[in-house]
């Protein structure tokens, strides 16, 4: 089985290296094919591992030593257990799909080969992240996906906004990584190891305050990667990257790493329910917060990105409340439908020549039937309509909130569910229904390549049926995660809640259709009353948070840096050194006239010297006699 493990892990790396060999050559189809093929190999290996793990085994291997210093021992160790194998499946499936899709999507891009190099490298990093058997290895993957994310967001490096977004994403993640790093330090100094098994065995013996800090710092790391408030701004900006990237990294895999971390570290979080509550509360807040921003946004990808953010909030609610398996389940389901949604959006973008404003689209269902169906279904799944994947995972989270008696969280999530349905179908309606506003811009949309649609189809299938595997999945992960079943005890309540939620969501969908699917959609132009309302503006400007960050952090930092250099470093620190040197030199300049070359004054100086010596002699001898020494 170790062989499969290594294949699953390194096949993407090989693909990446292969692609990077050609990174400077013009586009070559085989690069995409080879990379996709290797990804598929990785997927197959993962599947084999899954079946193996389902048999109740786990694979744990240690490839080699990485860092050994003092008592610290960090190997390149990998573990395939019930949790990581789920993640591996998600990652390999989505990434295989995205790879194949990208062959079509990036067809005309000059950086085709480079794109695959980065993309496969990302998958490799993600695999390291999920498969590692220790926190340091996790951190490697953690940073690795950050790097690839940087490279892919800034893939079109000639665009100022893209590179800016790339740097923003990297730096924001770094802020969180610091927290993660500190968490790792804490773990090491308190348990003496970074191996999951050792740490989790040891963590119960630690003081609760230490565990709390560990939990907090690790969660800070998770917050960055999963773009939780207040480190969320990078995710929306990250949409500057090519759309497959958004699908893979910023929807399905990387952003869920934070959730994975919390799930993985469940023995730690189990000990500190208070932190869990905080995580859940933050998750609920983010769910609502992000959904609210998605309501008014006019950028197709950003809307989906906010939706991702919102769903991540859901996952954190589950994880925070201790329902780790639920979180992981939603992660999985979400990966499928959200990736699908993004890829569909990618098709639309292609068709619309990279136009992102849904108000400039409309009526696309006629020319893009396949995409239309897929996106609609994905949206349905996202909204959580039975029997799609979203229903099983998302409803479960609501139930968890209810069962655990966190009614506020429950209510928030419920409202969010409605909002989600609304903005999802607002988007669908604006894109695919209504009049063909794009004609004004002289665009002739066309459907994407067939194989791209084919490539997307596994996701569609999974988005539709993933819910059916709920019990299989539960059986699988209960070996590793707390096997709490969340059932509302009263059947009546359960039904009322379920049906109520469904009705609420459907109502929201209908409202969205009613408002945006007809032909008379008013394109917002800043004149309508709604647009001038405070709330709209607040949402439109993303609660002014990017602006605040810019004003409070970026600009002052730049200014402070300038001051540090020009004022402090040059004018104080360096000037002091120079002043000492110059002072000595000036003293020389000012006193050299003592040596004026005049013999008379030379003689006088000698006498002065003598008189001074004599004066001191007299003074001293008087003192000597007085003291009588």
């Amino acid at each position, binding site marked *: 089985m170790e062989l499969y493990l290594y294949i699953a892990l390194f096949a993407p790396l090989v693909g990446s290296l292969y692609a990077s060999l050609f990174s400077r050559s013009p586009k070559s189809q085989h690069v995409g094919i080879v990379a996709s093929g290797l990804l598929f190999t990785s997927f197959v290996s993962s599947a084999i591992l899954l079946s193996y793990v389902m048999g109740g085994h786990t694979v744990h291997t240690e490839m080699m030593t990485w860092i050994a210093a003092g008592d610290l021992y960090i190997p390149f160790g990998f573990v395939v257990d019930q949790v990581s194998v789920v993640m591996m499946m998600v990652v390999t499936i989505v990434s295989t799909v995205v790879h194949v899709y990208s062959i079509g999507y990036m067809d005309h891009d000059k950086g085709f080969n480079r794109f695959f190099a980065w993309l496969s490298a990302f998958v490799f990093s993600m695999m390291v992240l999920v498969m590692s058997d220790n926190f340091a290895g996790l951190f490697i993957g953690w940073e690795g996906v950050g790097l690839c994310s940087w490279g892919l967001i800034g893939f079109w490096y000639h665009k100022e906004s893209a590179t800016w977004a790339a740097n923003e994403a990297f730096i924001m993640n770094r802020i969180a990584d610091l927290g993660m790093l500190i968490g790792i330090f804490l773990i090491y100094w308190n348990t003496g190891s970074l191996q999951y098994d050792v740490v989790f065995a040891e963590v119960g013996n630690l003081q609760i305050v230490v565990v709390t800090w560990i939990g907090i710092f690790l969660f800070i790391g998770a917050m960055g990667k999963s773009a939780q408030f207040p480190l969320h701004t990078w995710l929306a900006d990250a949409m500057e990257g090519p759309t497959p990237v958004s699908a893979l990294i910023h929807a399905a895999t990387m952003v869920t790493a934070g959730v994975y971390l919390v799930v993985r570290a469940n023995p730690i979080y189990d000990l500190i329910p208070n932190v869990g509550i905080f995580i859940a509360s933050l998750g609920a807040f983010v769910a609502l917060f992000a959904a609210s921003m998605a309501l008014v946004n006019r950028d197709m990808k950003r809307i989906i990105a906010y939706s991702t953010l919102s769903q991540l909030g859901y996952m954190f609610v589950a994880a925070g409340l201790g329902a780790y398996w639920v979180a992981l389940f939603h992660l999985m389901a979400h990966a499928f439908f959200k990736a699908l949604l993004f890829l569909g959006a990618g098709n639309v973008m292609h068709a619309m020549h990279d136009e992102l404003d849904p108000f400039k689209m409309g009526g696309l269902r006629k020319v893009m039937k396949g995409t239309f169906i897929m996106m609609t279904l994905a949206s349905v799944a996202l909204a959580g309509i039975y029997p799609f994947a979203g229903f099983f995972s998302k409803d479960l989270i609501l139930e968890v909130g209810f069962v655990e008696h966190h009614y506020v969280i429950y209510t928030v999530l419920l409202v969010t569910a409605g909002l989600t349905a609304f903005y999802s179908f607002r988007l669908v309606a604006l894109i695919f229904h209504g009049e063909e506003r794009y004609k004004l811009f002289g665009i002739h949309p066309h459907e994407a390549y067939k194989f791209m649609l084919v490539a997307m189809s596994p996701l569609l299938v999974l988005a539709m049926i993933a819910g059916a595997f709920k019990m299989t999945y539960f059986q699988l992960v209960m070996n590793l995660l707390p096997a709490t079943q969340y059932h509302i005890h009263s059947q009546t309540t359960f039904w009322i809640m379920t049906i109520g939620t469904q009705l609420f969501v459907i109502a929201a969908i209908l409202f969205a259709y009613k408002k945006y699917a007809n032909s008379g959609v008013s394109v917002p132009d800043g004149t309508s009353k709604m647009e001038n309302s405070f709330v709209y503006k607040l949402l439109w400007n993303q609660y002014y948070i990017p602006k605040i960050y810019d004003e409070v952090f970026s600009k002052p930092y730049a200014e402070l840096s300038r001051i540090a250099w020009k004022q402090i470093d040059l004018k104080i620190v360096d000037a002091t050194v120079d002043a000492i040197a110059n002072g000595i030199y000036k003293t020389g300049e000012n006193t050299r006239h003592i040596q004026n070359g005049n013999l008379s004054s030379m003689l*006088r100086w000698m006498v002065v010297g003598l008189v001074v010596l*004599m004066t001191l002699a*007299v003074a001293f001898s008087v003192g000597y006699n007085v003291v009588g020494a």
Partner: protein
Amino acid sequence: MFEAIAFYLFAALTIVMFTITVMTSQALYAITAMAAGMIFISAFFFILGADFLGAIQIIVYTGAVMALYAFGMMFFDTTRDVVEKRTNPQIVFVLGVLAAIMVVAIFVAPVVSNNIQALYPIQENIGNSQAVGMVLFTKYLVPFELAAVMLLVAMIGGIVLAGKKMDKSLTLMNEEDILSMDDGFEPQEGGH
């Protein structure tokens, strides 16, 4: 009593003479006062029983040294009033007086010592010159001989410096000029 009178008299005289020497602007006065001061000093030597020293003082100082200075004065044509630019005369006097005060401040305390022994005691029964001779040619033979060397050095130095060869400077001349010079400039035989 006689000793006291002589001391004060000659002390006053030397002080006055030397003061004139350093204060006057007339070179002639200065050198005359100087010579007089020297002679008065020899008087102290006689009072103190250092006859030999007194004689030397008169011969060497008043005879040789003063003669040399007089020669120098004539050479430098400084018999007229000497014009000197005075800079900060106050400092000069303050320093001088301070120096005097400091030294005197120490000197007013008598020397207390139980261990001073005359290593070369002055014997009453013999003349000063003889005693000096004895010491000079035993203990101080080496300094004496070295003094001879010193005088030789002074002589050579004086002659060389004042000699005619110093009128031209090979140091400043070009190589060509030196070569083109007739060989007469080469050190002449025994020309001192």
